[in-house]
Every structure is written in C-alpha cells, then in structure tokens.
C-alpha cells in the first residue's frame, strides 16, 4: 500500500509536466493557429473572432490557468469543427479504443503466455521455434500490413467478420473487435511468449521449484501454483511498458478497419486543424498511459506479495 502511495505521489509531477508540455505544444504552432484553421480566404475579422473564441487573445498565463482549471473540471473546451464539447467527443471515442486496447492485450496474453510456457518446457520444440519467429515477425510487420492482410482474408475473401465499424449489439461488438484486436495484439504475442519462456526457465531453476517437485507435486501444480506466479511478473512489466505502444497500434488499426475511436477522432481533428480536440486526445492518451501503468503496479502487488511489503 505504501509503495503504491509513493508511486501515486511520484506520478503527480510527471503527469502535470506532461500536461504543461501539451499546453506548450499547442501554442508553438508556427504562425497563428486561428489563421491556419480558417485557411487562405479568411478575413482579418473572422481570424480575430476565432482568436477570441479560442481564448488566444488573452495573455499566456491566463490561458495557462484556464487550461488547468478546465482540466480539473474535465472541461477541455469545444470542438471548432463540430461545435460539441471536446469531453463529449472523447467520452464517445474512448470506449471503442479501450475495448480494442484490451482486445489487443488479451490476444497477446492468451496466445503468448501458453506459447511461452510450452517453449520453456520443451526447449527446441516447434513451440520454441514459433515463439522466436513470432517475436521477430511481431516487431517487424507493421500493424497496418497485418491489418490489411486480415481484412483481405477474413472480411473480403471470406466474409466471416465485418470490415468496418464497431458494432451495435453485444454480438456485433465482439465480432467487430476480433480482427482489429488480432492486428493490434500481434506485435506483442511473440514478445510475451519470449519473455514468458526466459522468465519461466530462470524460475524453474530455483530451489523452491525443486522442493515442490520433491514433495511429489505433479507438473501442473508445480508450474501453475509455484513457477508461473513468479514467472509472470516480467510479462506484466512488458505489457505495462507497451501499453502506450498498444494504444498507438489501436489508433492505426482504427484506420485500417474504419472503427470509431480516439485514432479516428485525432486524425479527423488533425485534418480539420481542430486544436482543442487534438489537445484533448493527447491529454487522454497521457492519462491512459499513466493510469494503466499504475494499474500494472497494483497487479504486481497482487501477483507478488513481496512487493506489498
């Protein structure tokens, strides 16, 4: 608990720093963002109107204070293109993206961990080989190539799964999630398998595992209750470290599979120069990384009692 509290305290300056950086980034846009948004046929009057609407005519410190006061009330301003509050847009987009990130993690764990276990128990077997090659391919094939391939095979060639959208009823939601999750999670499958393998191998060499065996426990009890519990900690670390990447992958997968979500929102906002929305997506993605890393820390202490001390 204390460790967790310390982590929480550590996170505060990092998060605040990141939020300050987002504020700064949105204000170093070369030239006038208002003019850039309105394009070439803007009148000075319309530029001035937009500047005051954006609050750009106020002094910088005032904008800075407003930004943080707004954040504290979950108010991120209004979208310029859609005229809706940014928080509403983010709220709508967050669901599908979180689902997809979860789906991607699930794919990498459900496929990667068993593969890693088999690879560790039967070194040099097909599973070992598949884990190694999978790890190499996972980090070498970009999300969109893998996504386009899946789309072509399971959606266009054999129309088994939907090629676009996020689905309306629960069944459709799951069906629409399968291919994007595979595309997003793939890069991590081999990585998780390899980490599981090497971590399990080092754990299996410990005395307590030998003791468990000597007690006459079957392989299932030895691996499942004793070895795996410690062996999975590095896997958690990798997943935690990669959450931001997974989110990036989800953004790309959303483009390939025409899914609604943060990626779609961000790209639309970028092409419309809708700065409040861009800012909102970045803020959410930073909070996403920070909060989920904290969650991984909580999981650590659930898996490893030593961490709790």
């Amino acid at each position: 608990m204390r460790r967790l509290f310390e982590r929480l305290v550590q996170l505060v300056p990092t998060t605040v720093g990141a939020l300050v950086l987002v504020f700064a980034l949105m204000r170093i846009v070369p030239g006038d963002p208002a003019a850039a948004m309105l394009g070439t046929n803007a009148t000075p009057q319309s530029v001035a109107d937009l500047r005051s609407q954006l609050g750009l005519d106020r002094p910088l410190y005032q904008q800075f204070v407003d930004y943080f006061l707004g954040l504290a009330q979950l108010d991120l301003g209004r979208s310029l293109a859609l005229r809706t509050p940014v928080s509403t847009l983010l709220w709508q987009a967050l669901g599908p993206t979180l689902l997809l990130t979860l789906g991607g993690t699930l794919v990498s764990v459900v496929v990667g961990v068993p593969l890693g276990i088999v690879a560790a128990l039967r070194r040099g077997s097909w599973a070992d080989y598949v884990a190694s090659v999978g790890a190499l391919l996972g980090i070498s094939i970009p999300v969109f190539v893998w996504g386009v391939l899946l789309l072509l095979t399971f959606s266009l060639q054999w129309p088994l799964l939907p090629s676009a959208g996020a689905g309306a009823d629960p069944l459709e939601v799951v069906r629409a999630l399968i291919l994007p999750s595979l595309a997003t999670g793939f890069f991590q499958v081999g990585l998780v398998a390899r980490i599981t393998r090497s971590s399990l191998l080092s754990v299996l060499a410990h005395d307590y595992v030998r003791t468990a065996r000597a007690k006459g426990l079957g392989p299932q009890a030895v691996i499942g209750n004793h070895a795996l519990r410690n062996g999975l900690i590095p896997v958690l670390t990798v997943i935690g470290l990669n959450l931001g990447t997974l989110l990036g992958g989800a953004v790309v997968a959303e483009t390939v599979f025409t899914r609604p979500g943060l990626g779609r929102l961000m790209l639309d906002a970028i092409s419309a120069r809708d700065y409040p929305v861009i800012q909102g997506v970045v803020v959410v993605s930073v909070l996403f990384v920070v909060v989920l890393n904290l969650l991984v820390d909580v999981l650590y202490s659930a898996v490893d009692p030593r961490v709790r001390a």
Partner: protein
Amino acid sequence: MTVGDAVDVPLPARVAAPVRPAADSFSLHGRVSRTVLRKPLILASALFIVAAVGSAVVVPTLPLGDPTEQSVVRRLKPPSAENVLGTDRLGRDILSRVMWGTRISLTVGIGVVAISALFGTLVGLLSGYFSGALADVLMRVVDILLAFPPLILAMVMVTVLGSSLQTVVVAISIGVVPRFARVARAAILAIREREYVLGARALGASTARIMLRHVLLNAIDPLIVLCTLLVPAAILTEALLSFLGLGITEPTPTWGNMINNGRLVLREAPWLTFFPSAAIVLTVIAFNLLGDAIRDALDPNTKDFAAPMRATGGA
C-alpha cells in the same frame, strides 16, 4: 530462431581462435565479424541492407521512370515487362516508387538514430555521471516524455511542426531520445563506480576525460546494440505516420503512403499494397536480425533489454 542460439563456431575457427592476435579477438570488429558473418541468415540480412543502402544512394541514376509521373492510360496495370511491379491508381510505376521510398525510409531510420544517440547519450551521461539537481531535472523531463504514447507524440509533433522529411525525423526522435537516455543512464550508472574509474579520478584525470574515455567507452556496447535495433523501429514509425496520411505525403513516394493508397483497391489491384509491404517487412526483418546478431556477438549474456523498446519505437 537461429540468432538466439549459442554461437556455432565451426571447428577450424575454434582451433584457430587462440592464435589470433588479441587485438582482433577483442575488438568490436573482430567480435562482430566472427559471429555475425558465419550465419547464412545474418549474412543475407547484411547483404540485403547493403543492397538497400546502395540502391537508396544510386536510385537517381538508375534507369527507372519518374516516380511521380502519372499516366491515365496505364492506371492500375498489373506487373508486366514494361512496369515490373505494376502501376498505381495514377499510373505511376510502382518499382520506381518502392525504390525511391527506400531512400525516405533509410534516411529516417538513420537520422532518428543519429539524433537519438547523440542526445540520448548526452542526457544519459550527464544524468548518470553527475548526481544532483541537473540529473534530477533531466530524468524528470525524460519521465514526462515517456508518459506520451510514442506514435501519438509523433503525430502531434508532425502536426505542430509541419510535414517534411526533417520534421518527421525530429518528431520521431522526440519519443526515442528519452528511451535511449534511460538505457544510456543505466549503462553509465553501472560503470561509474568501477575501480578503474575511481583509479582514473585518483590519478587526477579531468572529469571530461573520465566521462568520455573511461565511462562512456566502456558503456558503449549496449548503446551500439540499441542503435542497430532502433533503426527498424524508426523505419516502422515513419511508415505508420505516412500510412495515416501524416508526415511525408503525396506525391513523394513512401512505403507507408503507398500502402495507404493501395488499401482502397485491395481486391482489384493487390500489387499496390503487396510490394511496398514486402519492402517494409524485409527491410525491418533484416535490420532486426542483424541487430540481434550484433547483440549476441557483443555480449551473449545480455537479456533482450531492447525488446520492449523496439516495440515501443515501432508502433
């Protein structure tokens, strides 16, 4: 994977090893060439990279068509004698576009690594060697940058800075520098308290000399490995940006924007997507295999410390 196996030195080499001059067997070059070039897959990767770099350099002199020349009558032609890899929706020659795309990808890969190595090593060295306010501030900045998902950060940077080859390199580097700095700092911290460093200090060597000659030079192996593994990661990130329509945009050919283009006619004209995809995948695999091999050669005992980082840079 063959790369991960114990180094399989053929018998004659084993016999010959002890008589080799010491300088060769311990030098970077000696260690790398002995382990790297003995394996066919690694050799193939190395040759592929040499060929890719070579063609990226000479592509303007090759007898290829103009990669941006459009032709209404030759739209979406499948591979033929005239257009070896076919043409795209605007009738542009795909072979020529893939070759010119190599240039962009390799420039980004090398550029990002050069910038990240320079600033990452500097930050790692300063924050690892000195302890105090400077180190704290530097590591705090690193932590802040690490809170951003790398791809999202690059997307924002490209939006803010505008899209060109240079801005894309800078935009990707901003996410890579803190990750490089982390590894550099860890390597420096491990060396800082070694006896020979204390010895050099006792002998009155200057701080700059100790930092560069005694600390950095001995911490350089993991950084070299990191560099080789970050090249493919940077290439992938650039491809992702181009694919999303950010970064380097049409008409300049990049592998990412070619795939984005081909995606719309995936069933009718799969060659639009296939060839640039193959180019990315083969190049990245070649760099990853070579990077793994260099890692094994420099230190067979290291764990894959770069694994999460590679993925982090890559997507």
